[in-house]
Structures are given as structure tokens and as C-alpha cells.
């Protein structure tokens, strides 16, 4: 590692450690919460990146695994069934369950070509959501559209994250506790992604992405490897689902719509699929941008003395335009992977 890279790494490390405190002091609790969600999206985007970026499989129903993890946590740690499992059991459970669903979906469908697979995964995502929405009858399992409430708050061993702690005069409220829990999860996910990418398995995924038939002819069991990518991606989704449920305190089916899947895909592609730094950047950008655009109403008042355009519409409108512009300006993503960059520039 050269001096410049080392400097950047240290800078980034200091930044992510100081960021929540600075945000809390300058912008308030709400913005730290936005950062927490941004980290959750980073986790989801990293998971989808394994499927789309590494193995080259277009998945439009990724949110289903997020939902599985979230409901797993919600049902096993809430008054719904009077169960109160601990976090260390719930997260691996959610990850495992999500992986099982990944295999369940992948087994019959992974033989399909790209866009056919996309629509099948999309359908799967919708099926999961519809079941969550309707499994309150005849036996009430998911509590239907109302969702599950009063979910046990996140706690790590003896530390209950909803408490405010004081360390050396610095106040550490819930949102900052959660930030560091999520940050740890993201750190772990990045490490995992790096190791997978550089391994025998990661190389096999890259080969399948580049030329599936040639890969099979070299002895790669393409179906099993694709299933593995699906299952690995799903575990990330399952874990973030669990964290989401514990943080929110309630879950309902409307958090798991197709739009959510599409947004996570946008994060991966816009950031630069296959490249971890790009995916992280894409996730942070697309989860913070809509929140930052909430200020558009105030801006209008400031500039024109009156709110002319409904800020909630304007916010999404600007977001959509930004999405189009960013993609037009950098079609290979903001921080493309080495290989993708080559791919694009050679084809020009």
C-alpha cells in the first residue's frame, strides 16, 4: 500500500468515527438517523453486489431477503408470539433463513437467461410481500398490513442501545449507538466481500459473468456457483433485515415493495457494480440525497417567499433527474470496477 492510499484509508476511518458526533451536534438527531439508514442500505447494496456485480445475475426482487430477515427478527422478538430471542441468535437465524429462500428461489430459475431471471426474481419479491400482507388469516402469523409492533429493541449483551450513555463527557444517544453497531456490520460485510472477490469462488463468479459457456466447459458447476452467489447475497439481506426490525421497533409489508428492490439496484449500478467502494458510495448517495432534498420546500420559501411546488413531489422529481443525469455522465458507474471500465472503454 502506498503512502497516498494509506492516507486516504486513515482519513476515511477518522471521518466515519467522527461523523455521527459532528452530525448530531450540527444537524441533530434526525440526521444521525438518516446516517443509520444509509449504513443499512450500504449493507443491502453490498449483498446485492455479490449477486449482480460479482456473478452478473440481475435480481429485481432482492428486497424479499431483507423482508425475510426483518420478519424473522420481528416474529421471534416481540409480543406477537411472546418470543424474545437474543440478537446473537436472531441475526444468524435471519441470515440462514434468507439464504434458504435464496436457494429455494434459485434452484428452479437459475438456468434462465438474464432478463428472464430478472422478472422471475421480481415476481418472487412480490409473492413474499403479498404473503406478508395476507398471512393474518386464517391463522394470524404476520399480522397482515398492520405489521408487527413492539419489537424488542437492539441490544448487544448487557448494552441496551436505546439508553443514552456518557463517555468522558460526550453524550452517546440511541442513534449513535446504532450507528456504531451498523458500522461494525458494514465493516464486516466489506471484509467479507473483499475476501470472496479475491478467492477461488470470486474468480469463478467473474468467469461465469464473462462467458458462462466457456466457464462451464472449464469444469465450473455454473448452477451451484450461481446458487451460492444468490445465497451469499441473501444472507446480507437477512442480516440487514434483522437490524432494521430491531431499530425501527415495527415492521410492515409496505417497507418491502418492488420500488425498494429497484432502489438498491440503482445504488449498485450507479455506484459502480463489482467495486466495493463504488457500491458504498452509491448506497450513501442515493439514501442521503432524497433526505437532503427535503429542504427544497424551505429553499423555495427562502428564494421566492412562498412554496410554489409541492416539496414532496419536487424532491422525487429532482431525484429522478439526478439519477438520469448521473447515469448519462458516467454510464459505467461513479467508481467502476477495473474490469468494467475496460469493458466500456474498449467497446467505444
Amino acid at each position, binding site marked *: 500500500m502506498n503512502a497516498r492510499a494509506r492516507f486516504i484509508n486513515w482519513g476515511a476511518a477518522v471521518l466515519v468515527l467522527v461523523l455521527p458526533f459532528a452530525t448530531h451536534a450540527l444537524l441533530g438527531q434526525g440526521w444521525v438517523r438518516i446516517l443509520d439508514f444509509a449504513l443499512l442500505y450500504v449493507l443491502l447494496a453490498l449483498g446485492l453486489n455479490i449477486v449482480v456485480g460479482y456473478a452478473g445475475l440481475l435480481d429485481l426482487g432482492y428486497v424479499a431477503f431483507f423482508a425475510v430477515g426483518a420478519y424473522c427478527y420481528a416474529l421471534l422478538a416481540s409480543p406477537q408470539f411472546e418470543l424474545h430471542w437474543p440478537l446473537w441468535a436472531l441475526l444468524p437465524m435471519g441470515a440462514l433463513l434468507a439464504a434458504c429462500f435464496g436457494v429455494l428461489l434459485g434452484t428452479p430459475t437459475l438456468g434462465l437467461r438474464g432478463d428472464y431471471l430478472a422478472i422471475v426474481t421480481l415476481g418472487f419479491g412480490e409473492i413474499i410481500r403479498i404473503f406478508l400482507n395476507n398471512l393474518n388469516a386464517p391463522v394470524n402469523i404476520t399480522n397482515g398490513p398492520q405489521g408487527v409492533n413492539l419489537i424488542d429493541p437492539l441490544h448487544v449483551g448487557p448494552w441496551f442501545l436505546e439508553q443514552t450513555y456518557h463517555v468522558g463527557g460526550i453524550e452517546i444517544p440511541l442513534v449513535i449507538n446504532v450507528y456504531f453497531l451498523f458500522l461494525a456490520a458494514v465493516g464486516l460485510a466489506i471484509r467479507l466481500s473483499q475476501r470472496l472477490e479475491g478467492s477461488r469462488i470470486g474468480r469463478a463468479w467473474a468467469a461465469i459473468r464473462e462467458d458462462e459457456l466457456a466457464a462451464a466447459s*472449464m469444469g465450473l458447476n455454473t448452477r451451484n456457483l450461481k446458487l451460492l452467489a444468490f445465497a*451469499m447475497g441473501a444472507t446480507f439481506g437477512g442480516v440487514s433485515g434483522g437490524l432494521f426490525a430491531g431499530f425501527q421497533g415495527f415492521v410492515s409489508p409496505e417497507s418491502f415493495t418492488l420500488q425498494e428492490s429497484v432502489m438498491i439496484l440503482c445504488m449498485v449500478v450507479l455506484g459502480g457494480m463489482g467495486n466495493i467502494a463504488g457500491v458504498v458510495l452509491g448506497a450513501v448517495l442515493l439514501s442521503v440525497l432524497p433526505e437532503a432534498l427535503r429542504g427544497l420546500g424551505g429553499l423555495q420559501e427562502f428564494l421566492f417567499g412562498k412554496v410554489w411546488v409541492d416539496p414532496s413531489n419536487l424532491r422525487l422529481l429532482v431525484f429522478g433527474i439526478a439519477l438520469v443525469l448521473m447515469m448519462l455522465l458516467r454510464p459505467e458507474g461513479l467508481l467502476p470496477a477495473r474490469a468494467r471500465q475496460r469493458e466500456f472503454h474498449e467497446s467505444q
Partner: protein
Amino acid sequence: MSRSEASQGGALLEAVGVGKRFGGLRALHDVSLALGEGTITGLIGPNGAGKTTFFNVLTGIYKPDTGTVHFAGAPLPAGRPHAVAERGIARTFQNIRLFPNMTVLENVMVGRHVRTQAGVLGAVFKTAATRREEAAIAASARGLLDYVGIAGQAQRVAGTLSYGDQRRLEIARALATEPRLLALDEPAAGMNAAERMRLADLVRRVRDDGTAILLIEHDVKWVARLCDRITVLDYGERIAEGSPQEVLAHPKVIEAYLGRGAA
């Protein structure tokens, strides 16, 4: 590439009565072929004779409609290319199919996949065994690049290699799977005379190191000099089989190549 001296004779590959149709098109009909260890076998015939289709059957890409293929004494897993590679048949492609955006070295390392083990857990925890295996994979890949003569290009992106080097890389990648039979689909296509000669040397060396060779080629003279046996296909049927001299003197072969009346 050290393997015990291959025994002459004794069929390594035995295809009997292979037939394949695509809709109304009869691509292959009753084609049989046998080849022994330590041999170089040529598969020739005019364009559209069914040579590549036959290759695709042998390497598990197509399931034959009729007939059987035995490899090393057991039936070949039809229609499952990865299982065929695992059993010991590796191939190259007529229209080169490398992993174009991966490096030259990575391409060959992918070939080692089928003979190595490390799984997800090994990758995640980077165990000592995994690191050892990775090092061994890289080392043997480098060795193979050296073997085919492109060791200097290891870190280049595969898609940017010259045509001839891409063909060599495809051979190195195939050899990385430790095949007992190497199937080359028009390996000399697009090469000049000097390159062809060096390719012939490489093919002989691979054979001498214990891997049988089956190759498709258009240049009949080149094939005749290189091969021990030749099979000729025309319109999806086998029209001749034998030593190069026998085959090239066969009236049906002359007719197929030069047209009716020439014989």
C-alpha cells in the same frame, strides 16, 4: 505436466453411432470415432460437415439424440459440460472464448478451479490451507503460461492479446484442468505458416506429456503431418477414417473436398 507414460492403444474415447438433429436439420448421423491415449487425432471435413457439433456433443454442450459416448471406460455425462471437464476432457473454441476482461493469469487460474477445493468458509477466514492452495493455483498457472510460451503476458488483460496468443492462452486454460483429452477446435485458424509450425510443436509436446489430442482443422496438409489418425465428416456423416495417407487417398474424401467428378 508429469503424468505416467500413457499406454498406446486401448480406447480412451469411444463414440458410437452419434446422431444429432436441430429441427429439420440433420447435423450428425451415425458418427463413430475412437481414439487412444497418447495419440493425436484429426477431425476434418468441409464447412458445415458437423465437426463443431460433434465437438459439442463430446464436451457435453449438446446431448446426442442417438448413440453413446464412452470416456475412459465409463459413459460420458451427456449435456453437462462441467461434469465432462471434471472427467478429463478440456476444449478450446473455434471463435475464441476467453474471459476477456480478466487477466491472462486469472484466465488460467479459472481452469484450476475444477481440481481445487477452497470454498466460501476458506475464502472468508483465509485459512492457511486456502492460502496454500491459492499460491499453488497461481504457481501452476504461471507454469502453464510458460509452457505455452506467453509467460511474459501474465498480467495483461486477456482480450488485448494478439490473436495467436489468445489461442495459446485458451490451450493453457484448458490444460489447467488436467485433461486426459484435449479437444482443439480450429486452433490454427488465422495463423501464418511460422505460427502454425510452433503450434504443431506445442501440440506434439502436450501429447508427449501424456494428454491425447483431438483437433478440428481446415489445413489438410498441416493435419496430415501432425495427426496419427484422421476422421472425415461430410454432411454430418463419417465418410472416411484411417491414417493420413489412407484418408487423403480415399475417393470419397477427394470428392467431398474437390467436388464430384474430381475423383
